[in-house]
């Protein structure tokens, strides 16, 4: 019940295309759903986040769609660029600030 399942494991997208990464959770007590971006040799950095009372949040080319009834949320990257190539993690926050991460998606954007 504490898991967050993320798919796909890897994704290859052409420059200018849309990248879509999906996550699903079970625990309805999760109260905050962030997405993190990690470049090789670096720590994860917050990209965008949403709370369960909102169905969509957009920041620039990045959009989170949240479906509370289905217990699913997704990250859409519009107009994907080679600089977006990184590993993306969804996460859900539990008790005590504990972030439970998905398994990660390695995104490669081809020029």
């Amino acid at each position, binding site marked *: 019940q504490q898991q967050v399942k993320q798919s796909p494991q890897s994704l290859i997208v052409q420059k200018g295309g849309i990248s879509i990464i999906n996550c699903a959770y079970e625990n309805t007590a999760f109260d*905050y759903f*962030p997405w993190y971006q*990690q470049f090789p*040799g*670096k*720590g*994860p*950095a*917050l990209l965008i*986040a949403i709370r369960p009372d909102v169905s969509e949040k957009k920041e620039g080319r990045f959009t989170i769609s949240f479906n509370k009834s289905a217990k699913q949320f997704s990250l859409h990257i519009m107009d994907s660029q080679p600089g977006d190539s990184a*590993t993306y*993690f969804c996460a859900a*926050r539990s008790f*005590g*600030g*504990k*972030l*439970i*991460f998905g*398994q*990660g998606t390695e995104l490669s954007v081809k020029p």
Partner: protein
Amino acid sequence: DTAVSQTPKYLVTQMGNDKSIKCEQNLGHDTMYWYKQDSKKFLKIMFSYNNKELIINETVPNRFSPKSPDKAHLNLHINSLELGDSAVYFCASSQDLSGELFFGEGSRLTVL
């Protein structure tokens, strides 16, 4: 000026040794964390401290002992290192238990 800094960045050691990783944050945050990232890049929380008080202690072997001398520092000491301890260890901090997490750049531990 690095917000969350960890030392050392790389650590190579033999099985059975004891080692420490240090973490400092200059963000004025109250909460600090240790996360472990395994070879498949899976990130899992190990510990969290809020105002120097232990809040989360996941099912981590007691060979791992965190220490928070003050709110700006959270160190991780590992006794009797095992091959399976090889991983990247990330320190993170947040304003409080509900704040955004800021991660350090990680400390890659290799146990031979």
